[in-house]
């Protein structure tokens, strides 16, 4: 079962995630261990399938704590998955390939201020990847080019500055330059603009789009902002409590959402022209990855269940017992909902 999308990509997928699970176990105290209590386990990513094609921009959207950042970190090998597979260019990623993988796939972080070592100059931060991978060529030429590609011109002016001496938007450009220096095929961006001023958000997003067009980069953008997804993405994947509940072409998912969760998210988005009078605010407990509800994990908060529509369709029982799988309802548009 896969969620293949056409997107704007050509050729096969660059990155494939297959049934990925990541869990975190709470610290088990000695006392609890002796009493035979098991540690609480949070299933942050709970069976995710995702593909990113060459030159495609995929937005991974969801609310805080849904596991989207954990998924991004697992893709980069920064957290160890409990099970599942990550395939890069058709080949499963093994531990010893990780170094080479991290040259081809780069990450851009949410907080550019934290992502740059305050004791390193911008030159050193951008050159870091080149040094790690012992890239041949004139280092300062490559650093210059990366800075210029990231929109920092003239690049030489930034060489000896420290991160605190430039603006937040410029810092994010430095992080992007550090990624570009290695000429990656794909960038995983974790909330790349959420820590930036509204005025520079557009510039950074425009930069990411330009990089895709110029270098044919694939992008996986993790965001909580569906509006952002709408602006830049070819495909959108919506994540809820560790699983992807809906995935498809951005336009289709955002204008004609199929999953009640996506609908609820879109209705609180002012740009989406949400009808404020009839909007469904999500009720019930906030999601807790240590206690994932059985069956459809969204059913305790699902407006369709609360309104009684699910019962009318005779789906109440199924919602509580059977995990819905992604089904292709419209071309390339998949949804994991019994009611769709």
């Amino acid at each position, binding site marked *: 079962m896969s969620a293949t999308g056409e997107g704007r990509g050509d050729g096969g997928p660059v990155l494939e995630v297959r049934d990925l699970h990541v869990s975190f176990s709470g610290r088990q105290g000695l006392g609890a261990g002796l009493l035979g209590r098991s540690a609480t386990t949070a299933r942050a990513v709970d069976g995710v399938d995702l593909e990113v094609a060459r030159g495609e921009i995929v937005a991974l959207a969801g609310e805080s704590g849904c596991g989207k950042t954990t998924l991004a970190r697992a893709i*980069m090998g920064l957290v160890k998955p409990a099970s599942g597979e990550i395939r890069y260019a058709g080949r499963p990623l093994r531990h010893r390939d990780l170094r080479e993988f*991290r*040259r081809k796939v*780069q990450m851009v972080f949410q907080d550019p201020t934290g992502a740059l070592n305050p*004791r390193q100059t911008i030159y050193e931060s951008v050159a870091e*990847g080149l040094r790690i991978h012992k890239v041949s060529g004139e280092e300062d030429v490559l650093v210059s080019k990366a800075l210029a590609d990231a929109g920092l011109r003239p690049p030489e002016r930034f060489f000896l500055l420290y991160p605190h001496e430039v603006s937040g938007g410029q810092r994010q450009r430095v992080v992007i330059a*550090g990624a570009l220096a*290695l000429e990656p095929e794909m960038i995983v961006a974790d909330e790349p603009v959420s820590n930036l001023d509204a005025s520079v958000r557009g510039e950074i997003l425009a930069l990411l789009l330009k990089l895709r067009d110029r270098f044919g980069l694939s992008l996986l953008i993790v965001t909580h902002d569906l509006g952002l997804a709408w602006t830049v993405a070819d495909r959108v994947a919506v994540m809820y409590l560790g699983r992807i509940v809906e995935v498809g072409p951005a336009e289709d998912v955002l204008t004609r959402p199929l999953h009640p969760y996506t609908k609820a998210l879109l209705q609180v988005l002012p740009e989406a022209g949400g009808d404020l009078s009839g909007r469904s605010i999500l009720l019930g407990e906030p999601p807790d990855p240590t206690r994932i509800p059985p069956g459809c994990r969204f059913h305790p908060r699902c407006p369709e269940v609360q309104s009684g529509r699910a019962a009318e369709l005779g789906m109440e029982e199924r919602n509580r017992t059977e995990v819905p799988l992604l089904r292709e309802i419209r071309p390339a548009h998949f949804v994991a909902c019994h009611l769709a």
Partner: protein
Amino acid sequence: MAGLIILGFFLIVALAAPLLADSRGLSPVGATGGVLDPPSLDYPMGTDDLGRSVLTLTIWGSRISLMVGFFATALSMVIGAVIGIAAGYYGGWRETAMMRFTDWFLVIPFLPLAIVLASILGRSLFNIILVIGITSWPGTARLVRAQTLSVKERPYVERARALGAGDWHLITRHILPNVFPLIFANTILVVAIAILSETTLSFLGLGDPLRISWGTILEFAFNGGAASRGAWWWLLPPGVAIVLVVLAFTMCGYALDEILNPRLRRR
């Protein structure tokens, strides 16, 4: 500031010892003064029971005391930093093993351990540095481990990891530079402790018998009955020198701590 001035003064005295006092004055054979002469123009701090100038002894003693202080601290810092960074960085069972080892060193009372080690290893300058070095690192290790735990979670470490950096790169380029200020501030406080330890061990007769340190002078004075014979000039100069140097190091250490520790900055 006052700390730096006092420290600077003693450093200059130690470095310029050959210019300030004739080293022949250290040998009982070369002694020129009378027995236990009180301070006079010729002997501004009097003489000891062998007729040596206490001023000369104190000036030359500063060299050994400071040297032992610095080298023992350097040794302690290296051990503490390596164990602290390794434990904090790698985590897991390695951390547990290293930290229990550290705790073990931490709970052994310093003096008995130092005495045992010093008597096993024998009385020499190198051994006394070794003894102080290997008994004073656990505090540093714990401090460095705590800081490493904090630094390794910072996003720039994760960025470097995502760029493909290995452990060595992360430790030398990111962890160490950001832990170093703390190690440095701690070093200065440890120097003071190391100098005091050297004095203690020398006073107990475990120091190098052939070299004069402030502790050795105090030992001679004590054994020579300086207190009962009213020879205050024999005890006071090395004693005051120790107090001043330790005070100066402590003041510098706290000042640095205040500069480097952001949580103390706005007080």
